[in-house]
Structure formats: structure tokens, C-alpha cells
């Protein structure tokens, strides 16, 4: 299983050069059954990553570009009167796919955002008083641009909490960038990714991850981390229990991806920044821009045994 995951990582690596760590985190997030928030500048490869992830699992995929005039019905679907049958027929919206790329999620109104978020949390949508199940698995990969905030509706904490991880992609290193420039225009990159895994693999992995052992010492360590966010003045507020559960889920998957049957502190440390950064806010920071430094500080201030 480890090899297959590695194969998937390499496969995505052919289109998103030199970003193995981010790819692994994204895969970890999907295997853990969580939704992913990618936050970075335009043109950094957010969409490419999302495409590649979809293709490598062979999931059917849809992209929704969020704009300020997007309405919930545009995502969820509408019932249209069929004159021939004399009935209302429900036309599914773009959300009825296994994987959704919600591009620029913070550009749309809270109303539309919350429609998506209900789908994310419940795995179902309510349209016109009728609850409709979404396909399983159901993933949302949302992207947002952290810099130009004019005319946006930033996601509130409660909604950020729905995402298992938030990752950035960052500029490529010089070597990868050189390679990228050389091969520019030769490919439609997302399309090149071949399927490596299927839905059954995903379900299998998810089951395997659930069996990854967590020793009392490791749980103590996670608890110390959580307690630190609540006790220390560095943090505006502490992590929620849901945040704690998210850390455990991601840790298990990461240990599995590393080929271990038991999680170790390094697994926690690998996933922690991505899992908690968007859930934390510095005690002296009203803007919530200090996530990465905070997670690093948290890790360097809590003892591992």
C-alpha cells in the first residue's frame, strides 16, 4: 500500500514539480476523508494539484468558480418544470461529483459558502425541502487567495474548522522552476496524470488508517499540544476538540503513509502545521496571519518524550 501511495505521489510530482511534501499532505488529507483548503497566490499550481489529485484516484471531478454573484442553486441544482411530464425535475448542480474544486471560495457570499459547507459537513444537500445524498467519497478542495482581500468574504473560524487541512504551495525551488520553464507549454499538465489508485483503494486505506496504533505516550503528547494552545498567552483561543480529533486522524494517515503501524511524534509534527494553522490565532494578532509561525512555536515549546 505504501508503494502505491508513493507511486501516486510521484505521479502527481510529474506535474507539480518539487512539491512532494505538499502533495503528501494533500493525499493524507484525502485519505483521512477530510476536505482541503489550499491557500496561495494565483498561478502557484492550486488547480493543477486539485486536478492531479482527482485524476490519480480516478474520481469524477468538477470545478466551480466562485464569484460574488454565485447563488446556492448554482451549486446545488434546481428543479425545473417539465411541460411534457407536467412535473418538476431536479437538475443536479455541479456539486454532485466525487471531487469538487471550489476555486476562490472566499469570493462568494456567505450564503453560498454555507451551502457548500453544509454539503462538506453532512455529505448531503437539502434542496427544496428534499435531502439528497452526495456521491461517496465526497471531497472538496477549496482554494483562496490570501493577499487581495478586496471584495471577498473571508471564511469565519467556524467554517475554516470544517477543513481538515490548510496548505500553501509556495514558489518552486530553482531546480524545479528551471525544469518547469524548459517544459513549459509541452503539456496540459493535469491531463498527463495517469490513474494510480481507485476508489476501493481509498476505502481500504481509510480502513487501514483507522487501525494505526496510538500509544498513551503519543496521546499524552497530543494532549499537551492542545493544552498549550489553551493555556498560553501566545494564542488568542485554544484548539477545539474537533481540532484535536483532526490532528489524530491526520496523524494516523501519515503514519500509514510512512509505512508504520504506529504513530510516532514525528507524524504528529509532520501534519500539525497543516491541521492547526487555520484554527489558531495569535494572542496579539487580530488578522490571523501568523499561523505558520504559531504552529512552529507550538511544536518547539512542548516536550516530546
Amino acid at each position, binding site marked *: 500500500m505504501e508503494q502505491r501511495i508513493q507511486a501516486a505521489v510521484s505521479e502527481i510530482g510529474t506535474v507539480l514539480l518539487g512539491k512532494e511534501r505538499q502533495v503528501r499532505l494533500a493525499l493524507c488529507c484525502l485519505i483521512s476523508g477530510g476536505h482541503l483548503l489550499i491557500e496561495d497566490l494565483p498561478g502557484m499550481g492550486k488547480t493543477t494539484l486539485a486536478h492531479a489529485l482527482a485524476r490519480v484516484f480516478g474520481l469524477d471531478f468538477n470545478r466551480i468558480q466562485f464569484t460574488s454573484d454565485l447563488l446556492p442553486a448554482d451549486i446545488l441544482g434546481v428543479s425545473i418544470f417539465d411541460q411534457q411530464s407536467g412535473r418538476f425535475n431536479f437538475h443536479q448542480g455541479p456539486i454532485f461529483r466525487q471531487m469538487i474544486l471550489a476555486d476562490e471560495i472566499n469570493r462568494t457570499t456567505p450564503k453560498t459558502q454555507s451551502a457548500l459547507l453544509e454539503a462538506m459537513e453532512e455529505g448531503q444537500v437539502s434542496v427544496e425541502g428534499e435531502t439528497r445524498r452526495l456521491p461517496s467519497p465526497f471531497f472538496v478542495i477549496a482554494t483562496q487567495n490570501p493577499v487581495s482581500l478586496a471584495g471577498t468574504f473571508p471564511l469565519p473560524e467556524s467554517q475554516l474548522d470544517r477543513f481538515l487541512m490548510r496548505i500553501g504551495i509556495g514558489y518552486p525551488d530553482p531546480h524545479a522552476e528551471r525544469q518547469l520553464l524548459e517544459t513549459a507549454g509541452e503539456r496540459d499538465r493535469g491531463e498527463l496524470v495517469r490513474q494510480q489508485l481507485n476508489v476501493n483503494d481509498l476505502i481500504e486505506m481509510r480502513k487501514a488508517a483507522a487501525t494505526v*496504533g496510538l*500509544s*498513551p*505516550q*503519543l496521546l*499524552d503528547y497530543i494532549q499537551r499540544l492542545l493544552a498549550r494552545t489553551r493555556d498560553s498567552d501566545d494564542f488568542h483561543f485554544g484548539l477545539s476538540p474537533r481540532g484535536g480529533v483532526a490532528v489524530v486522524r491526520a496523524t494516523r494517515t501519515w503514519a500509514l503513509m510512512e509505512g508504520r*503501524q*504506529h*504513530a*510516532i*511524534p*514525528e507524524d504528529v*509534527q509532520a501534519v500539525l502545521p497543516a491541521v492547526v494553522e487555520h484554527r489558531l490565532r495569535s*494572542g*496579539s494578532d487580530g488578522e490571523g496571519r501568523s499561523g505558520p509561525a504559531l504552529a512552529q512555536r507550538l*511544536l*518547539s*515549546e*512542548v*516536550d*516530546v*518524550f
Partner: protein
Amino acid sequence: MDVNYQIPRLALLWVLAALLLVILPGMLRLPPLILLLVLGCMGWRLLIFSGRANYPGKLVKALIVFTALPLTVLQFRSQGVGLDAAVCLLILGVVFKLLEMQYKRDIVIVIVLAYVLTMIGFIYSQTIPSGVHALLAVAVITGALVSLNRDNARNNFRDNSRLAAQLVLQSVPLTLALFILVPRIAPLWTMPLPVPSNKTGVTDEMTPGDISSLGRSAELAFRVSFDGEAPSHDRLYWRGLVLDFFDGRTWRRGGSALLDYGMIRRYPSEYRGVRQGEPVDYDVIMEPTQQTWVYGMQLAEVTTGEIVQDRNYSLHSATPITQRLRYQLRSWSAFQTDLELPRALRSRALQMPDEDSNTRSALLARELRAASTDDRDYVARVLRHYREQPFFYTLNPPLLGEASIDEFLFQTREGFCEHYAGSFVYLMRAVGIPARVVVGYHGGEYNPFEDYTMVYQYNAHAWAEVWFEGEGWVRFDPTGAVAPERISQGVEAVFANQPGFMEDSGFSMMRFRDTQWLNTLRLRLDAIDYAWNRWVVSYDQDLQLEFLEDVFGEKARSSLLWALGLSTALIFSIAAFFLLRGGQRQLRDPVTRSYLALAVDLAVMGLPRRRGEGPLDYCARVSAERPELAAAMQTVTRLYVQLCYGEQGVGSEELRQEFRVTLQTLRLRVLSRARRAGLVAVSAFSRPQ
């Protein structure tokens, strides 16, 4: 600016109020210019607060500081660099800090300084009102501290005052316990106390009119409490100084300083006086006089206090009395002093003015002496002369000219006690009988509420001592011959309606002593003040020991030390327990403990485990730095991770064994390497970093 470092607005008002309250009693001591500067700075701060002025710039600040310094020096130039100047500089420093305080850090400094200023107040005054003031000031300063540390939502005047009052009240029992129990240690240095220029009380000169002017003052001189019953009023002679040099107008202390100030212990025992009758023990608390002499009854023996006795049996303190002084004395109901009068003393007791114009008085003396059988008879005749001639005892005697004795004895015949004492001694000396003037106080008012006697300035008195062969010095009071009720009932009874009596005391409560309830109130207030002085202000090492012996029995000192030591140890061990418990709970697992010990060993080699570093990361780092240890380190780490984070209880005993062995081997290697490199395992007990 970060909101967390800003000063809450309410806190600023609190601090200003606290500072004003603290400085208030000291304001009168500040020179007017400095006071103006202080108030100006506070006003400026208020303007900044209300947004009507800005913080002073660097230049202005420098200007203020560099004018204030020379100004202070200039203002205090005459008094020298002493406590007053230092306190003034401190106050200036605090108000200047007001002007530049922008952050919480600054305001904390001001608050701490306000506490210090409150304490400094006690150097100047230790009365009940100043105690109450200090308590109030501490409460307001604490309120400022509370207000500073509260977030804006709950920062309101009522809650802050309530919390501050609670805190202060809670601290009262602790303060009391500390006050009673903490050992009093003699100060390592003494404070150069400010010396008020106006000396009060009886002086070491007596010119007609001096003592009668004291009659105008109702200020307290001292308070006495007797062990057992107080002597009757006519025996309450509080002896001050002996004046034996007369220049025709003024009586002074004569003789050499050596004779006066030498401690009586240096003299042979026959000069120390013969004690007879019952001993009387009493305890005196004296008001500051700025003089060195203190008061006691005849032939007093000092039992406690820094008091010495001179050759004339007067009592002296080593330094001027600038603060209330407490001492204990023992006198005897009967006594004889100087049965043998040395020649030096005799000549001093017979000294007459060089240019004596009191011829009529001398003539009178010789006539009376010729008519009497012996010296005692002569004294009786002189006293009878005072009684039978129309002498008048008054607080407002007419002024006397050159031949003061003659004028008093034959013309005015109106005088206060100094006139009678002075002329009486003159008449003795004129016929060769050794005599001298004694000044001090007589009488006192009994306060039933605390069982003590109050002696006021208007109790000041002068009398005479005459030496007889075989009897020594005998006290005679010629005033008693003229106004017997002065001696038996006190000066108040004589002068109550005479103009001038207690005239300088304004609306003193003394003047309303005829109103029953006011008089009771006055006595009650004085009793409280007395108790405060006796039990609080003069609570020193001896009193503390006495008190503790009452409570704990004989071994008070050692049990006090034990109690202090044990309670301190208890407090610290409780604190230590709570501090250390957190860390120790997680170290119970022996595997973790030995792994951490390895990390400590590696720290000696310069490879400490970083905080928050996982075992695999640490292993990788150690392996990279010390390739020779890599294999063993990896094995140990693998086993550790398996034991600590792997499936619990699977083949654990063997794993444990293997882990122990490999770890021990690795630690030995590490330590031997470290020793070879000359490093010492100093950090064996330190916590892993």
C-alpha cells in the same frame, strides 16, 4: 501600538489620585517652587489624558530634568543634602515619570514608587492619622494596580475599589502577624533625620518670663504610666536640668561639661545617693523636644532605654530627641544625695553674680539669717517671708530691670515659679548656704482610660534644692509658699481663668475641659494615642520578646525562630511540590526516563535534545553529527519508539531488556568519549532541553 501594552484610561486616573494622596502630607515640606513643579507635572498629565496636550518632547524633558536638579539643590542648600532633599528628588522623579508614561511597564514603575513613597511617610510621622493615611494610600495604589490589569469591560470604579479594599483587608492579618513575629534587627545604618529648628519644652536657661511663656502652651510634654499606684500630685516633680550659674539675670548650667555629662557610674558609690523607702517603677513616653535632656523623678535609676545620668542626677539622651522617646525608670520614695558635697560642687552652689546690684536682697538675707538659729530655720523664715508679704502668683508678671531680684522681692512682688525659685536660691547663696535651681515639670493630668498621667508644657515648673550638712540636697518649692494649690492641685486649678493661660493653643480641646463630654472625649483620644505609642510605635525587640514569652513561655526566642523557619520551609515545600509535580508525573515510565538520561549524556557532548524534537529527528541529528554513534543510536531509538509508541505489551519484556542493554552500552560510550574530551557531566540532573 499593541492594545495589550496600552494603559487603560481609568488606571491613569487611579494612579494620579493615588500619587496625589501619597504626596499630600509631604507637600508642606516641599519648597514652594518644587511643589509648583510637581503640581504642574500632574496637571500636564491630566491635559495629556484629556487630549488637550501632547507628551513632552525630548528637549522639553531634558530641560525639565536639568532645571529641577539644580533647583532642588538650591532649595535645600541651607539644610545640606539630607533626607528632605532625597525625598524631594524621588517625588520629582515620580512626577516626571508621569509625563513619559505611555506603556503599562512605565505605570508599574510609578505604582511601585508610590508604595515606596508611602513607606517614606513613616520616617516623618508615626501617628495614628499617618497610619490611617498610609492604609488608605495603599488601598488606592492597589486600586490603580487592579485597574491597570483589568480589561476594559470590567474596569469600573466600583469593582476596582471593592477588589482593592478586599486585597488590602486580606493583607491586614498577614501584616499584623509579620509585625508581631518578624525579629527586630537593629538598623545597619541610621537615617540622618531632619531636625526641626524650633526646640520645645524647658530650656537650659532660665530668665524671668521663660517658664511663664510655657504656661501659654497646652502641648503635650510627656506621658507617664506607673507600675502600681501613682504618687500623689504634690510629689510629682519631674526633674529636668540643674541650673547653678547666675549672672544677675539669667540662670544657666554652670561648671564643666565633664562634670555634667560624665556618667554617674564613674563616680564613687557614695555620690550615687542613698535610696530609701519603696521603689516606684514607671514608664515614660516623651514627645520630641530637639533637646538632649529627659525627665524623671528625683534620683531615678534607668531600667531600659538609652539614657544616662549626670553628676547632678539629671537624665540625658545621647542624641537630640527628634522622635517620641520611650524609657523606663525606677525612683525611690525617699532618698539622700551628696551627703558629702565636693568642693567643686560646693563652689558652684555658692556662686554669686560678679556685678551684683541686688543689694537690698543681700541685706534682707543677712538680717533674716542673723535672726534664725540655724540654716533650716533660715529657710523656714525665707519661706514665711514669701507667704506673709503680699506676693502674688501670676502667669503675666511685670518686666524686671537690672537688679531683677531686688525689683521682684521689694517692688513688683508678682511672679511665676521662676521668679520664686530664682530669688529663693539667691537668698540662700547670699548667706553661704549651697543652693541651686532645678527646672522641669510638676504635676500632670491623670487619664483614667489607660491609667497614665499626661504632663503638658504648661506644667513646666522651677524649684530649688538646698544642701544641708548631713542631709544632702533637700527640695524646697517657694512657689508652694505663695500658691499652695499650685502644688496640691496643679497649675490648671490656679490659672484656669487667668488671661494668657494656654493662650497659644488656640481652640485646643484643653480649653473646653469644663464641658464634661468634651473633656471625656479629649481624655479618650489621648488614651488611644498613648496606647498606639506604647504598643505599636515603640514595639521593639524587648517588647516583642516580652510578648512572645507571654504567649510561648520562656523559650520564646528559639520557638520564634523555629516557627518562622518551619513555616517558611512549609510554604516553600508546598510551592515546590506544585511546581515540580507537573514535570514528574510524565517521567514515571522507566523507559522514557532512561531515554531522557541518554539525551542528558549527549548534551554533555554538545548534542542536547531540543525541545519538541521527536526521537527520530534527534536520532538523525546525532547520527549525522557523530557517525561513530549512529548505529547504536539508531538501534536505541528504534527500540525506544517501539516501546514507547508501538503496540503496547507485544514481546515487551525482551524488547525492554534489549533496550536497557543497548542504552547502557551507548551511554557508557558517550560518557567515556565525553570524559576523554575533557567534558564533565555537569548537567546530569538538569531537565532535558
